[in-house]
């Protein structure tokens, strides 16, 4: 096995990876930017290398610095976590060149899946269901009109190199299509330097369901069940769970097989995720493949007993998968909440700052993968995620009740958080019933974002009383009450000693 691994990431995911390395007896190397000198991942790792200034571009995205640190520390492999360099084909090649094993798929798999038109083509070849749409680029208006008609309105115009909604357009009728394609091309050109766009059928109010896959270098590829990630805000996942409330055993088998086919089509190696859109009639369409570990991977771990980070490392080391498809179980139900330093009641403004108090939830069925501590200042430079709060329950109802209990135990002062907003999701009747799709947050926005105004006079008054007591306590501290008592005790002791003489 590897003796030493460098983790090219920060925050909770760096700690998540380090923990599994430690359990495998592997020495861990952290890297850090200026802003992260006090970050927990630096302390929990065995070694730590400074790689640059605070901005990501000058630190966690600097391939040269990271490879230099790996060489200096004699790390044999690099785990990229998620984000940063985790889906960067160039970085995997740089690692190869430096003789360091990149823990993830090869450049071919990353770049094929990274380009949407190429990925679509590959998936169609591999027999994976894709959203009906055009196969390649569209050069003339006649082709555009014909293709759109074949697909049937409404259609989506999408950029091949796209992401984050850029170069994406919803077209409802024939009149709009030519102009929409023109606009999308122009946007795509400026955003990605590539004006290729394609047309896709618009899937109305879909579910976002993804399959975790594992593949070794010997071509053994399995899926490890699905995750339902339809609770999204602006395409950002908020709550994830497994199993999906929508899933049936038959559908899982069918979709799982296609996820495996998708991975095999690009000779995938490591852990990856194949994302699908699923409509209300349970038609499903390949959306994209994420060629790395996902933030929501723990819900899969909790329900299958598989440590996905350890599997990644074993695969990267060249081991054969120890699991066969039929060994994968699905035990109970797991859910994850992403806890962010943001002001949910104020349009989710980021809320960086110093943690003045933190009490993390614990106890039966609760796992909190975090990295903050009291006194830590959440840097302004990176993603504002504080932790992933994961629960396991024997069924969905127990998982929901446990998540509510855990959210209730979780107390953070110093930054605003999404905790109260999340609590409302777990109190929403349709969510509890398992009836939700990607439109969920929008549909119930009024309920979910209702300001938590306090209607309880007692609680206000008790808060006022507590503030009053705190003020009194401070005043008495300044007037040295405590020191006086201290002195009196010594006097008392002296006096008693005196009497004894």
């Amino acid at each position, binding site marked *: 096995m590897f003796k030493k691994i460098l983790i090219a990431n920060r925050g909770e995911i760096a700690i998540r990876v380090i923990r599994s390395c430690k359990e495998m007896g592997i020495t861990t190397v952290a890297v850090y930017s200026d802003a992260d000198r006090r970050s927990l991942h630096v302390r929990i790792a065995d070694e730590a290398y400074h790689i640059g200034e605070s901005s990501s571009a000058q630190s966690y995205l600097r391939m040269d610095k990271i490879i230099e640190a790996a060489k200096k520390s004699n790390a044999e492999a690099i785990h990229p976590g998620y984000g940063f360099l985790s889906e960067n084909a160039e970085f995997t090649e740089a690692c190869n060149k430096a003789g360091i094993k990149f823990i993830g798929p090869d450049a071919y798999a990353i770049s094929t899946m990274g380009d949407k038109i190429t990925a679509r083509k590959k998936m169609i070849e591999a027999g994976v269901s894709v959203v009906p749409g055009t196969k390649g680029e569209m050069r003339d208006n006649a082709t555009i009109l014909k293709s759109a008609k074949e697909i049937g309105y409404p259609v989506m115009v999408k950029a091949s190199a796209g992401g984050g909604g850029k170069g994406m357009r919803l077209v409802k009728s024939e009149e709009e299509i030519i102009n929409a394609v023109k606009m999308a091309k122009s946007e795509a050109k400026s955003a990605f330097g590539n004006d290729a766009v394609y047309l896709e059928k618009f899937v109305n109010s879909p579910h976002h369901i993804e399959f975790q896959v594992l593949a070794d270098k010997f071509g053994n590829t399995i899926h490890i069940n699905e995750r339902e990630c339809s609770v999204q805000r602006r395409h950002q996942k908020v709550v994830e769970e497994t199993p999906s409330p929508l899933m049936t055993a038959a559908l899982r088998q069918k979709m799982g097989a296609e996820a495996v086919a998708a991975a095999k089509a690009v000779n995938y190696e490591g852990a990856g995720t194949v994302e699908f859109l699923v409509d209300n009639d349970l038609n499903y369409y390949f959306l994209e493949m994420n060629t790395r570990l996902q933030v929501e991977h723990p819900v899969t771990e909790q329900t299958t007993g598989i440590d996905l980070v350890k599997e990644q490392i074993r695969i990267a080391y060249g081991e054969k998968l120890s699991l066969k498809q039929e060994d994968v179980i699905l035990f109970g139900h797991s859910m994850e909440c992403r806890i962010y330093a943001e002001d949910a009641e104020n349009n989710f403004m*980021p809320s960086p700052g110093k943690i003045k108090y933190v009490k993390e939830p614990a106890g039966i069925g609760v796992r909190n993968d975090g990295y903050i501590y009291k006194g830590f200042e959440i840097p*302004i430079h990176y993603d*504002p995620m504080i932790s992933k709060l994961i629960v396991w329950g024997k069924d969905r109802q127990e998982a929901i009740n446990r998540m509510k209990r855990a959210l209730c135990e979780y107390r953070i002062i110093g930054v605003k958080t999404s905790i109260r907003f999340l609590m409302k999701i777990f109190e929403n009747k349709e969510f509890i019933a398992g009836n939700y799709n990607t439109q969920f947050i929008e549909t119930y926005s009024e309920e979910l974002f209702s300001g938590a105004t306090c209607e309880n006079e007692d609680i206000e008054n*008790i*808060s006022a009383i507590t503030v009053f007591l705190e003020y009194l306590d401070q005043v008495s501290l300044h007037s040295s009450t405590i020191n006086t008592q201290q002195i009196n005790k010594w006097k008392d002791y002296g006096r008693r000693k005196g009497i004894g003489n």
Partner: protein
Amino acid sequence: MELEVKINNKLKKLELISQEDEIYTIRVDDEFYEVIAVKTTPQVYSVLLDNISYTLEIAKTDFSGKKFNVSTKNYKFMAKVIDAQTKYQQSRKQENDENSSDIISTPMPGQVIKIMVAEGQKVKSGDTIIIVEAMKMQSEYKASNDRIVKEILVEEGDKIKGHQPLVILEKE
């Protein structure tokens, strides 16, 4: 001992009637509360009222020792103690406000991305003065009245703290 505490925007008058060990009798406006209260750690109070258990986390928000964030099971409050000193300062501040300058600042730390104005420039209510980025999200800060830019205290690219004065506006 008597003073005022502002909870969010509600002003409450409090008076300590009596104290015996951890049992406090306190009047809040017209109601009397007998609570058993202990400070378990520097930031956490455990308060029992009629045997109902409340936990309140409390953190100072500035150096005055009079402004606090208070957190209970379901709510968070901004709280402020108004004692004699505060009242004096408030009365002075009101005088100053009469011919005051507007100070543009941000509620959180970040980085100055763009300054849209120059010193001496006239701006209208709603004009963007400065753009600040934190955690990859940019926010525009606008003038809330017609003003003149008196002074710009930062440069583009500067790292800034929360509540730090960035741009000072004044009446024409």
